[in-house]
């Protein structure tokens, strides 16, 4: 259960980005969570909600983009979405494949409140 700590790191980043922009309100933060990252998206959302409750960030939306495991075949260079458990290359059947994605834990973007109309 380290999702609360992860949520804290995300919130700290949002606070930093806001401070860099004269305290502009940030409405949404987008994160990518790979299925191999060891982070449970439900627990992350729950921890985040608990963290922002009764703070100036209460309305901040956390958008979680779940990513599948992706393998690249060393034999035929095919890239394919694999299940959580490894599966051989669907094209050539090779077992010699490498995990190239699926353990992401990234902050992808933030969304700022639109400036008031002039």
């Amino acid at each position, binding site marked *: *259960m*380290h999702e609360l*700590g*992860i949520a804290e*790191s*995300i919130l700290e*980043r949002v606070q930093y*980005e806001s401070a860099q922009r004269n305290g502009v309100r940030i409405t949404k933060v987008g*994160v990518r969570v790979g299925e*191999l*990252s*060891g*982070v449970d998206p439900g627990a992350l959302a729950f921890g985040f909600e608990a963290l922002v409750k009764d703070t100036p960030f209460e309305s901040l939306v956390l958008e979680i983009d779940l990513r599948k495991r992706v393998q690249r075949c060393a034999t035929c260079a095919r890239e394919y979405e694999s299940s*959580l*458990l*490894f599966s051989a290359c669907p094209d050539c059947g090779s*077992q*010699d*494949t490498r*995990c190239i994605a699926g*353990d992401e*834990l*990234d*902050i*992808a*973007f*933030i*969304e*700022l409140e*639109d400036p008031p109309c002039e």
Partner: protein
Amino acid sequence: MRIAVEEKVLNENQRLALELRRRFQNHGVFCLNLISAPGSGKTSLLERTLEAMAPDARVAVLTGDIQTENDARRLAGAGFPVKQITTGGTCHLDAKMITKALADWDLSKIDVLFIENVGNLVCPASYDLGEDAKVVLLSVTEGEDKPLKYPGIFLKSELCVINKTDLLPYVQFDLAVARENARKVHPGIEFVEISCTARNGLEEWLAWVYRRQQKAIGAPTL
């Protein structure tokens, strides 16, 4: 308005881990990060490992737990530098804790550093500690489906140490199935089977450590 950030959530940990890795490389320190569920035998394996070392071996241990200095006490008997990191509730070690723990150690006097993580198969997988390799321990009392239930750590570990093999006659644990399950997650994972109690398989473990160390420091392989 959307602004791209594109950074790792654990950016700060990653930064500190890279710094540690650089320091380890500069001082010729080979570092292993041992991860398992609580009670799989990380401390026992380290006890046996330290016992087997020559008295002048330049080996050291950092051991993490939520509470107590018990592990450091157990390991200190061998006479090598051992330091306990108590996380006070945190379920894993992070690079900042390692940096702090190493502050008063002279890395140029260490050749092999073992880090014993907090007993947990989930969270430690997310935190790079600057190690050369992660090693996951699985004991035969835990069931052979653990690699399927906790794939992250088996994917990221180079070696799976299967411990408590002396208990195999008494538990329903199929070694072949356990290996197959780990390979489903990580086809290239290596295995060593040991019993810390019966002192079996330890030479094989020490040979793996030595081989991996040679690879890390760029020595020609025999």
